[in-house]
């Protein structure tokens, strides 16, 4: 258990800058999700904290101690990999015990710690099996178990759920979060899935092209995105963006309105043509196309009537829901 501090951490591969300086203070026991599209540098950032990539510039501190030059083992971290990285020839027990064996923990304590973790993760019946004899969800649990038995200061998760099917992903999401709360270990979790980020994070870092666009609590980020990218990336369906000149305002400005804040109306601020309606049961998504070709989506209650495809409808929203972005994508 420890705090984790990133202080203007940068990474370059040769002359290519991959991460342009990320800073964050993570409190003890906090669950931080790093989210962003592929290639934004989120995994690289995590691997720098793990010690698997060198840090070009800046400083990483775990528990107030600079760890830039430390080996992964000495950093007191544990990592869960995307493909689990279980040792195929070792039993579940040996997989979980390997790190402890190397650390020369006494046999009796290894057994006790593994048993404890196995109980926590409901892996007790499988301890003698090999990884290939387990299902995806169970392998995932073993990878978690391997991290838990080390009793690290920081957990690092590198897209741990992306190899699971959709249903299992939702279930494991809850389990990981519950487990982390129970153990109270500071965690850094990388994902490209904004739903995971929204549901799991205490705070999240939204990365875009090697820059942390926004750091904040999920609902704050959702309600008040700092940049156009964040507004478009967080939330599904994504925020509708409308250029100012469509509304008779400055063309420098772009407006962002979330689908649930947009309403269909007789007249309204602008007109658009309905192209397709997706009835999802609880809600209906109405897709429309504006006169300049911009696509917008309106999310409305399933009970509300929806327009016929091809018909021209008006769109309106409350001014307080309007997010204005300048030409560089920043809020203004």
């Amino acid at each position: 258990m420890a705090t984790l501090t990133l202080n203007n951490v940068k990474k370059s591969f040769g002359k290519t800058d991959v991460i342009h300086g990320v800073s964050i203070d993570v409190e003890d026991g906090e669950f931080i999700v790093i989210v962003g599209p592929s290639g934004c540098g989120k995994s690289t950032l995590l691997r720098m904290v793990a010690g698997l990539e060198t840090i070009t510039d800046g400083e990483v501190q775990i528990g107030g101690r600079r760890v830039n030059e430390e080996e992964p083992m000495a950093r007191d971290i544990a990592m869960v990999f995307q493909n689990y990285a279980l040792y195929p020839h070792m039993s579940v027990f040996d997989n979980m015990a390997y790190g402890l064996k190397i650390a020369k923990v006494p046999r009796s304590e290894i057994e006790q710690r593994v048993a404890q973790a196995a109980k926590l993760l409901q892996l007790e019946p499988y301890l003698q099996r090999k990884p290939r004899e387990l299902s995806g969800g169970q392998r995932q649990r073993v990878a978690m178990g391997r991290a838990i038995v080390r009793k690290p200061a920081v957990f690092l998760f590198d897209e741990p759920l992306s190899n699971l099917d959709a249903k299992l992903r939702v279930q494991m999401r809850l389990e990981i979060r519950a487990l982390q709360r129970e153990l109270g270990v500071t965690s850094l979790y990388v994902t490209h899935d904004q739903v995971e980020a929204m549901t799991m994070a205490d705070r999240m870092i939204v990365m875009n092209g090697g820059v942390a666009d926004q750091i904040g609590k999920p609902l704050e980020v959702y309600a008040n995105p700092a940049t156009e990218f964040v507004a478009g990336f967080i939330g599904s369906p994504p925020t509708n963006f409308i250029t100012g000149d469509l509304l008779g305002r400055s063309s420098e400005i772009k407006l962002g309105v979330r689908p649930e804040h947009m309403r269909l109306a007789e007249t309204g601020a602008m007109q658009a043509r309905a192209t397709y309606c997706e009835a999802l049961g609880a809600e209906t998504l109405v897709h429309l196309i504006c006169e300049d070709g911009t696509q917008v989506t309106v999310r409305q209650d399933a009970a509300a009537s929806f327009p016929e495809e091809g018909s021209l409808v008006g769109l309106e929203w409350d001014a307080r829901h309007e997010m204005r972005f300048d030409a560089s994508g920043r809020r203004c």
Partner: protein
Amino acid sequence: MAEQTGMVEKRGAGLWLTHLGLIIGVAFIFFPIWLAFVASTVSQPEIVRPPMPLLPGDQFFENYSKALTAGINAPVALMLGNSLFMALGIAIGKIAISLLSAFAIVYFKFPGKKLFFWLIFLTLMLPVEVRIVPTYEVIANFGMLNSYQGLILPLIASATATFLFRQFFMTVPDELAEAARVDGAGPMRFFFDILLPMSRTNIAALFVILFIYGWNQYLWPLLITTDPSMNTIVMGIKQMFPSGDDIADWPVIMATSILAMVPPVLVVVGMQKLFIRGLVESEK
């Protein structure tokens, strides 16, 4: 072509014909071995008098014990021992060296890494026979003629095996090495605890191939062993042939041939189970 596609399911004349073909093929290959075996169980006069016998005689124990204990130049038991030592040395040495060099090439960054890989790869083009004269010179200057080191060392490095292990190591996910690093395993620990057990299937397969390669070495032992007590069995058979007017002791020579065949067969049969099991169990 239509007939060929149906061949697997079709039972009847086709099936019998294929079996007949296979049986003829096997008999064709096996016949000389059978003749050698028959020749090793009869007495000298019976061999030289035509027609050659086709059924085993009653001299089995006499011929084999004579071959094993006395031989012609050296007892066959001694030559078998030499061959075994040489084949094992070559197989084990080659596997150890190849594993380590492949490990270095795949997992470490060092200057000239690519160059070294290609240098190793280039030696594939230089079989023993090509470099045999300079190699002889080197071994002779080291005073290794008529010694086990001389038999083993020049053949102990293998580009093929290095290449094979390199290919295998490259299929091992990087995350596994990283996980081991996070677990605190140093490079050699990772090698012994994780990479080595994962390569056991490849090691078994290579051992079979390399053991037979070592066992069947002919030219090199012929060149550097002049002392009959250092003869290996494959070249030893040749040494048993008479020169000039001597009379060949064919039953003993044939018994030696059969004995020379036994260890490779045992290795193939014995290891086959192991590496089929390894193949079935293997997973990366």
